[in-house]
């Protein structure tokens, strides 16, 4: 009897969501701290950012919404969808889309056109694990260039408090042990001596050990997208182009965000 007309329904902004309003809650693409038209200098031009964000991220979210409609994942938060679908092979598509969307967003929102410089505390923390910031940058680049194919290169913290590097291929995620897609867990032997001849093997002494760890073994701190669509527009596929991409990456990372992740709630 009462007044449903007078109650205000908050309409959801996304046009896709409007058509589904009566049925399901949809995921929407989160906004970036910078505009797509401006790009993120010097790393991504507006055209590249459009491909990564406007096309790729939106496509992933739309596909995810399609996939979870009517499934038990329907009303779950994004991170819950990611972690719950990771353990099931039937929901591989859901996990892949969710993980790629998460990785992409994590990557894009760590960038800034006016990044803050690395603070001394963060530099010391990196130096504790790598020796020096220069070594960290060099090893990061080496790991990223050694990722043969599409994937992500991560800086993560492990339970010994050490910052290590991690390569996850395709839509691998450091959150779930079975979905890291590192392509090297089955390797029985890593001879770091061979790094001298093959610096681009993708593993080094600064990499996370190549074995299946428990869940919640790594805390992601920073990542870079080594998917071709990320660097193809501005840098091409040559080795020099990708080296330049990594060079520009370090000029674009907002180190205050990284520091926040490393030091927030530290002391545990």
């Amino acid at each position, binding site marked *: *009897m009462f007044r449903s007309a*007078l109650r205000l329904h908050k309409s959801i902004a996304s046009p896709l969501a409007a058509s589904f309003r009566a049925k399901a809650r949809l995921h929407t693409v989160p906004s970036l701290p910078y505009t797509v038209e401006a790009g993120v200098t010097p790393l991504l031009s507006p055209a590249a950012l459009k491909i990564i964000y406007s096309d790729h991220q939106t496509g992933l979210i739309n596909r995810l919404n399609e996939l979870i409609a009517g499934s038990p994942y329907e009303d779950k938060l994004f991170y819950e969808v990611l972690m719950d679908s990771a353990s099931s092979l039937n929901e591989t598509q859901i996990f892949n889309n969710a993980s790629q969307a998460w990785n992409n967003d994590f990557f894009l929102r760590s960038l800034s056109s006016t990044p803050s410089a690395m603070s001394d505390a963060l530099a010391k923390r990196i130096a*504790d694990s790598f020796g020096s910031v220069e070594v960290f940058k060099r090893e990061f680049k080496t790991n990223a260039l050694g990722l043969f194919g599409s994937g992500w290169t991560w800086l993560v913290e492990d339970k010994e408090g050490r910052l290590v590097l991690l390569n996850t291929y395709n839509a691998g995620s450091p959150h779930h042990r079975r979905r890291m897609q590192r392509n090297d867990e089955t390797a029985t*032997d890593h001879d770091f*001596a061979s790094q001298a001849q093959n610096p681009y093997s993708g593993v080094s002494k600064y990499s996370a050990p190549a074995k299946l760890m428990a869940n919640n073994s790594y805390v992601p701190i920073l990542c870079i997208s080594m998917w071709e669509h990320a660097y193809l527009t501005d840098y091409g596929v040559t080795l020099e182009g990708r080296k330049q991409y990594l060079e520009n990456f370090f000029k674009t990372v907002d180190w205050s965000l990284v520091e926040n992740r490393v030091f927030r709630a530290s002391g*545990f």
Partner: protein
Amino acid sequence: MRATQVSLYSTGDKPGSGSGSDADDDDILDAMMAGMDSDFSVATPSTPAVPVPENLSSEESESSHVPTPVDIEKRIKALLPEYMSYGGQLAPKPRSALSNNPSPNTLTIAQLLAAGLHLGHSTSLWNVASMPFVYGVREGISIINLEHTLTHLRRACTVTKAVARQGGIILFIGTRDGMSHVTINSAKSCNAYYVASKWCPGTITNAQEIVGPHTPRLPDARAGDLAKPFRPDLVIVLNPIENMIAIKEATRFNIPTIAITDTDVDPRIVSYPIPANDDSVRGVELVAKVLAEAVKEGNKLALETSERLSKERIEDRVDRMKAYGARQ
């Protein structure tokens, strides 16, 4: 030579000579590395390259720069709000289409006015203690200030929702003739209790006599055991002037009370008065529905919490099993 290699790139427990399948590789490597290690400028950091746990005790000296272990579960939990913000944003929950009940946060004073909640009693009958809630007088009756009505209603809803969330027993009392359907429907819609006909004195203070005969006994009760009736945790009275005894009983046992207090009632007799007109069926129905909606929301939260807790308990147990080496 091999010893030099191991010390330069000390990989801890990897002598390299053990595995038979890599013997050839090692020989080739040895041959290639024979005179060559000095030519390669491979990174050798100042820190020891061995990431073995025994180095990481907290008594380690400053000069070795070895990071201290972290509690990674806590680290991830601390960073979880940030991690949950990445990827995609889930659209906010729409109001349930099945519920016709208005929410206190979207109620407007115009709605309260339309329901007639502002019409107090004749000024000759007023209770002085209700004066703060009276806006003025018109045509011989006191007009209740609907801003106070709204704020007090919202407060009552918060209390109700919190009690329901803790799993508390909520009792609706509404004994006027034309309003029994209001009491019954609003209570039934949120799985609460109601008294729609006369309040029997002693229902709370003498519960054993009055409610006891109707209370089911515990499954393991011995013969001759009395049933133990329970007390409500919140009492909502829709017409307090006829149910003073109920309010007194609740107060005696420290049970919080909510009531629709008109201008002829002292609002201080209940814990959370809602100054409004208790004569209009439309008005009372609006208030009862809003409170019932708050109870429903509290019930839903309680259900979510208990589901989450049981899921966490199960996962905790599975983690502990895995730590002991059980296969997944």
